[in-house]
């Protein structure tokens, strides 16, 4: 809910509540006022009647709303009172409220009671008029607040919204400094200053982290290269079998180390989202390309490749990552296969699936994507971790299932079963 809407809603509730109280109070106050007004009028009227009787000495003939009766002398002081009473109206078949005014007077030694009736406003009429006024007020205030909001959105909140938009679309990859617009409103400008300071710090940290990972990789790869060069040169000398094997083993160990370093670096880069440049990639094409590349190996291992569905499957991804994703899944399916086994592939608009024959029992689905979880002792155990990381950073779901084959499925976010996940993401 927008800030203004929230404020308005609160204001509106409060306003309604207040109006309700005011109208209930107003009802009673008005009732009392009307009665008081009636009392004043009737008192004046009774005084005039009293004067008339005093002057003429006889009881005047009045309308039925005025009754003058001779009464016994009252015990205390002469009293006057006003009540509200309901009298039936036969014509309209309803009761109508009247103010009944009684006043005891002493004229020429005789005590009289003057009773006067005056028609009052009906309560439902009163309620209706107060309710109507309330409703009108509400509608009016609602309209006013709506237009005021609209106007404020265009003026006060506009720059704030623009800044929000800037923050939303800010990417640490960009080298330009993060600049928010001045709003001219103290609170917003303060917020801008804080956000600016924070992002500046984060940006610097991010840059140094990025540089660190790359530099660390470089600083590791260069000595590795030197060691490898020297070992390779050593290999060219006449060597005994024992020495030869030691040199080769050392070279392989160094290469594994370098490979591990590169893969860890790649993982860090994916985690840091350093592959921003995204393209529309067709997974089917990459899969076909990789298959062609691996065909000699697959033929050699007599692994049969079958396509279940062979449709276009478009993913928005950095081409390098897409290549690694498919490559790792496919080599995984190949390396953990059985001789004369099979790989079945499927690409649809919203899924990519690779199934392979292999060990007869399922793998530990929670562990296989962990780093250094090795399927065989020669691998570095990062292939599937990289796959998972790529999927996670691209909001793709990866699932491992086992029936008679080991299946890895990537589900694209457009897929209905994945929609909720996608929606929660879009809310961020």
């Amino acid at each position, binding site marked *: 809910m927008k800030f203004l809407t929230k404020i308005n809603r609160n204001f509106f509730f409060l306003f309604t509540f207040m109006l309700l109280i005011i109208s209930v109070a107003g009802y009673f106050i008005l009732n009392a006022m009307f009665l008081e007004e009636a009392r004043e009028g009737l008192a004046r009227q009774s005084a005039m009647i009293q004067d008339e009787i005093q002057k003429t000495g006889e009881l005047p003939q009045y309308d039925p709303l005025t009754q003058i009766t001779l009464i016994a002398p009252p015990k205390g002081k002469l009293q006057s009172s006003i009540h509200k009473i309901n009298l039936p109206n036969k014509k309209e078949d309803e009761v109508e409220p009247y103010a009944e005014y009684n006043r005891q007077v002493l004229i020429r030694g005789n005590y009289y009671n003057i009773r006067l009736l005056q028609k009052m406003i009906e309560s439902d009429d009163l309620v209706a008029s107060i309710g109507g006024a309330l409703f009108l007020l509400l509608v009016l205030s609602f309209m006013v607040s709506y237009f005021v909001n609209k106007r404020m959105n265009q003026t006060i909140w506009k720059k704030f919204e623009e800044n929000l938009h800037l923050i939303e679309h800010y990417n640490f990859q960009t080298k330009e400094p993060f600049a928010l617009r001045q709003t001219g409103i103290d609170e917003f400008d303060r917020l801008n200053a804080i956000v600016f300071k924070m992002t500046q710090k984060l940006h610097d940290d991010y840059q140094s982290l990025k540089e660190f990972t790359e530099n660390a990789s470089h600083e590791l790869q260069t000595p590795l290269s030197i060691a490898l060069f020297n070992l*390779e040169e050593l290999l060219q000398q006449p060597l005994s079998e024992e020495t030869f094997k030691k040199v080769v083993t050392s*070279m392989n160990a160094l290469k594994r180390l370098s490979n591990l370093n590169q893969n860890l670096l790649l993982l860090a880069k994916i985690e840091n989202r350093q592959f921003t440049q995204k393209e529309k990639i067709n997974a089917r094409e990459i899969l076909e390309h990789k298959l062609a590349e691996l065909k000699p190996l697959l033929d050699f291992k007599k692994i049969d490749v079958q396509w279940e569905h062979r449709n276009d499957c478009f993913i928005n991804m950095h081409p390098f990552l897409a290549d690694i994703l498919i490559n790792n899944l496919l080599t995984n399916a190949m390396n953990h296969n059985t001789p004369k086994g099979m790989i079945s592939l499927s690409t649809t608009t919203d899924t990519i699936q690779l199934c392979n024959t292999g060990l007869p029992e399922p793998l530990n689905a929670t562990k296989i994507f962990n780093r250094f979880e090795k399927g*065989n002792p020669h691998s570095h155990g990062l292939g599937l971790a990289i796959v998972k990381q790529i999927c996670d950073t691209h909001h793709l779901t990866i699932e491992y299932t086992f029936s008679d084959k080991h299946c890895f499925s990537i589900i694209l976010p457009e897929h209905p079963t994945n929609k909720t996940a996608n929606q929660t993401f879009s809310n961020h």
Partner: protein
Amino acid sequence: MYEYDIILLDITLGDGNGLDLLKIIKKHNVQAGIIILSAKNSLDDKINGLDLGADDYMTKPFQLTELNSRIKALLRRRKFDGSHIVAFNEIALDTDSKTVIVNQQRITLTRKEYDLLLYFMVNKNRVLTKEAIAEHLWDDNIDLADNFDFIYTHMNNLRKKIKRCGGKDYIKTLYGMGYQFTDQ
């Protein structure tokens, strides 16, 4: 000024970025072939380097034999004076038409066998490890952990095909871990 055939350019130089140097080289219209050597396996650097006019890009650590192959390949591409023929005794390999002639007879090799033979011939007399060969034949991204048998099979097929045309077997196996293409 000297004229160089090949420039090996390290991106991370002591006093600046190799890519900047590459720009200067290209500005001076130097005709040399350029191979970038980098420790950074970052695609951006690779694309930048190739866009700036480099001919090849190698990520450290690489093997000298691999570098040798790339240099020779670049030389072959650069020169148009018939140097697209790589010859070793009775074996001649035409890198343009990708054909192999042994004792004046043409032999048919698979793509991988051809790559393997070319790699051997370019790096003749050098000791090559199984891993170096596997790495050359395949993308470095492919986890070749248990696929060395494949290379062995290819090696044997290649030997047979050359022998069939009366060629000698120049592929020497060293303690089951390395190979050498030599006539010594």
